[in-house]
């Protein structure tokens, strides 16, 4: 068998080691038992096992591993994990087996009638004498292949359940305290996230749950890591991995990951692969970031932005206090002369307290207080304008005794009394020189000074 082929009718069948038996095989022993052979030689009888083994070896030794294209039919995945199917074309069929070790790498079972190309070696299953191709790789002829098929199939399932619905996306917390990260502990993705958060928001605490991010079982590990982190006291979870082939990223396209993301009680940000890679994890996540760094930026508020928020709040505090002061001014405007005085005392007191508070504050807030104090002064000025002084400017005069009490009627003007007349621009010293005055009918005209002096009615 110089060319490697075996003449099944002349040569001895191979032994268990695949080599032809050197002892001559069954024929040799038959000859030994019957040394004087007759004219008709006893035919050599092979056992079935010998035949199948010979054929198997013949197939395995003479045909290299090869790609075979055809339509798939009867694809079955056994409980053992082994897969059996038939490839066919118009006129022929080829039985195929894909053992568990290879079959677990299939992202999805092929659909009936799909055009596949499979890679493997031909052999004979001796126990059944079945000719078959032992397949190690399966690719779909369609664009994107088996991966796309698997992706599309899971995506339609998740779409149908509403898990990819934009209305389901939760808003990220504006100021997270604690951020969970699912990533490989040695990945550039994790280093990028730590760097970005450290730069933008170093007050945020990061909690990492390490996981494998590729290879068999990665999907389950990623899913478990998401659930573990989400059950801790984190405000948001980032799922991150750098770029890679679709096979590398496959873990993020597996159903357990989608389920874990959907079940997370806190929002999940997916930063998987590069900008062009879209995974199932991206679709179910509350936010899809193009890269791990972008995910970190989306989660961590920039220090400057937070400072702006604080400044804005400081201004609103100042405005709130100003509004309080204004509403008091309005109320003061409603009350009369007595309240006017009391109000002014209160305003002065308020101003003192504002100054005291202001002394303890910094920056914008303090200038705000100065501003408010000025407003209070304005309010006081406005009240002055409404005081009886404005009435005096219209030509009225108010008689006051030397203690500043108002002299209201005839009886207040005793003979010889020195008093003063308060006119708009000052006091005029006066005296009662004549005899006691006669009382006339009381004046009820609203133009009387003591009446118009009532703030709020005087306009």
């Amino acid at each position: 068998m110089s060319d490697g082929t075996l003449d099944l009718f002349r040569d001895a069948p191979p032994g268990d080691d695949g080599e032809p038996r050197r002892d001559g095989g069954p024929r040799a022993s038959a000859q030994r038992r019957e040394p004087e052979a007759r004219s008709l030689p006893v035919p050599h009888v092979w056992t079935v096992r010998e035949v199948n083994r010979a054929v198997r070896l013949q197939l395995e030794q003479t045909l290299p591993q090869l790609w075979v294209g055809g339509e798939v039919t009867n694809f079955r995945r056994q409980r053992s994990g082994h897969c059996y199917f038939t490839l066919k074309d118009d006129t022929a069929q080829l039985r195929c087996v894909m053992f568990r070790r290879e079959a677990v790498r299939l992202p999805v079972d092929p659909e009936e009638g799909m055009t596949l190309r499979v890679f493997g070696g031909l052999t004979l299953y001796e126990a059944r004498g079945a000719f078959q191709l032992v397949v190690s790789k399966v690719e779909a002829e369609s664009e994107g292949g088996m991966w796309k098929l698997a992706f599309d199939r899971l995506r339609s399932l998740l779409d149908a359940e509403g898990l990819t619905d934009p209305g389901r996306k939760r808003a990220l917390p504006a100021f997270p305290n604690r951020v969970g990260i699912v990533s490989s502990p040695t990945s550039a993705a994790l280093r990028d996230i730590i760097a970005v958060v450290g730069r933008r928001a170093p007050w945020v605490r990061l909690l990492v749950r390490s996981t494998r991010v590729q290879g068999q079982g990665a999907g389950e590990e990623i899913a478990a890591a998401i659930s573990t982190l989400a059950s801790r006291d984190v405000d948001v979870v980032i799922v991150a991995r750098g770029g890679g082939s679709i096979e590398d990223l496959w873990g993020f396209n597996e159903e357990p990951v989608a389920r874990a993301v959907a079940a997370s009680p806190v929002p999940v940000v997916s930063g998987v692969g590069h900008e062009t890679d879209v995974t199932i994890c991206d679709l179910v996540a509350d936010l899809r970031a193009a890269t791990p760094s972008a995910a970190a930026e989306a989660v961590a508020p920039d220090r400057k932005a937070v400072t702006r928020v604080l400044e804005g709040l400081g201004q609103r505090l100042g405005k709130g206090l100003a509004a309080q002061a204004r509403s008091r001014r309005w109320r003061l405007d409603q009350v009369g002369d007595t309240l006017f005085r009391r109000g002014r005392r209160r305003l002065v007191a308020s101003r003192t307290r504002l100054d005291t508070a202001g002394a303890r504050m910094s920056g914008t807030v303090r200038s705000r207080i100065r501003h408010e104090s000025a407003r209070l002064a304005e309010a006081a000025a406005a009240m002055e304008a409404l005081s009886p002084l404005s009435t005096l400017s219209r030509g009225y005069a108010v008689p006051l005794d030397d203690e500043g009490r108002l002299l209201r009627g005839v009886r207040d003007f005793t003979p010889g009394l020195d008093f003063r007349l308060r006119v708009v621009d000052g006091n005029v010293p006066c005296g009662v020189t004549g005899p006691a005055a006669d009382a006339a009918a009381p004046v009820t005209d609203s133009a009387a000074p003591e009446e118009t002096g009532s703030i709020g009615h005087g306009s």
Partner: protein
Amino acid sequence: MEAEQGLDATLKRIEAIVAALDSDSLGLDEALALFEEGVGHLRRAQEFLAMAELRVEELIGRGGEEVREFREPGQGDRDAGDDS
């Protein structure tokens, strides 16, 4: 800032104070007290932002029941001086 409370809670408290100051049912004393409380929160928040240092921890153990300071695997070796 109150580390337990967190930035978010502090900002929410200041928001609540601002809302209260915008209402007109407050007495002057109350308004001033709220104002001072708000300003105190603001100042502490600013200090907190200025002084914070990033903390990275990791969950370890099967169920992630243990928390420890995160170190990238292999980092210890490099720290030991093998930086050739």
